[in-house]
């Protein structure tokens, strides 16, 4: 499942000054592997729960399509808190700062 337009995760990304590589649908939907490649994301941002469901950080890069991304060469993956990214609340600012910090470490 990937966050498209009009999702809280996409809104948080734009607040953090990040362009969401995926657009063209609203809400959270399963993504076609080819669209993932076509979007050419520099960094992959996943929730902690999503990484667990995929089978760990190593297994994330085994998901179909992931190995062809620019993000894959240096395995640029950022883990974010599930709850902080599914809505807005008192911890939103903290999550944004953390995301920005993680991103600057990677790039």
């Amino acid at each position: 499942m990937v966050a498209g337009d009009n999702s809280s995760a996409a809104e948080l990304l734009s607040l953090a000054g990040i362009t969401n590589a995926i657009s063209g649908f609203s809400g959270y939907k399963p993504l076609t592997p080819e669209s993932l490649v076509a979007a050419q994301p520099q960094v992959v941002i996943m929730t902690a729960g999503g990484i667990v469901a995929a089978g760990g950080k190593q297994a994330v890069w085994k998901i179909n399509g992931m190995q062809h991304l620019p993000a894959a060469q240096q395995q640029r993956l950022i883990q974010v808190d599930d709850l902080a990214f599914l809505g807005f609340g008192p911890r939103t600012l903290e999550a944004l700062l953390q995301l920005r910090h993680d991103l600057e470490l990677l790039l």
Partner: protein
Amino acid sequence: MKQLVSWKLKLIPWSKKNKALTLLGVLLLVALLISAQAGAMALGPWQIITGQMDAYGWQVWTAIRLPRLALAVVVGAALALSGAAMQGLFRNPLADPGLLGVASGASLAVGLWIVFPLSAWFPENWNWQAQMLVACVGSWLTCWLIFRLGKDTQGNMLWLLLAGLAINTLAGAAGGLLSYIADDQQLRQMSLWGMGGLGGVRGIELLVGAAIASPGLVLLYSVRKQLDVLQLGDVSAQATGLDTNKLRQKVVLGTALAVGASVALAGIIGFLGLMIPHLLRMILGPGHRLLLPASALGGAILLVLADALARTLAAPAEIPVGLLTSLLGGPYFLWMLSRGRGRG
């Protein structure tokens, strides 16, 4: 000139069977060509011909799109072929591969796998393959259980049918119990798996799956003549010397191999197994010698086309392909049905 044509036609025994199978084969090739071109990225045969395919595009095309086409062919053929064989075996138009518990057993096993932390025992990067393995083993265990329970030395198929219904209901209830105790994340994972899709499979898993499924397909195809004899009824068929127990074993084993592997790779895809054989029976008649290979081709055609739509209609998002097979095939099937009734 006219003489030449008729002479040529006489030379080649152009039977109804050959005609139908050739037509379906050509349709499958066309479907594959369309599907090889369709996708989120502009890659395909056209780009190869016009020389616009670069190394990166080629890599993506061969690593993502081609395995997906091959998977659609294998899964579509497995579901429709085993559906046709099951309907022939039970002489029941409502029989489908699901009756042997292949799908329900696999979902139960995957549900257990997701809800209980068994995956911690596996190496981290094995998780994905392990889930496919679990689905496959789950479907085989259920299939075996139903086959044992439904065993009847008289060669009556009714017990197998009833055992299948009972075990399927049980597995469904156990699955419901699992979703009751699952947390949010697990629940989403389970329901996504249940919808079915051809997107998650890479070349390696496809090869393993195809290696398991193809002996099953061959086995199912090999019983086409016996199935025709069986249509006389159990007693008459046995009087002709047909070993109905052996036939039953073959169909169950073939279905377990072929459909078990496809459920493990692609999740649960409805409609194909039940409707494709019916559709082709209405067009081609009930003989299994034609119906079985035609069903395999027909199932492959429908799934290849449905999957092409699944990944392009809502791109970049993906529609679960099981919804599309039903939406594409359902109305056509109903139209055929109403036409057939008006005629009869």
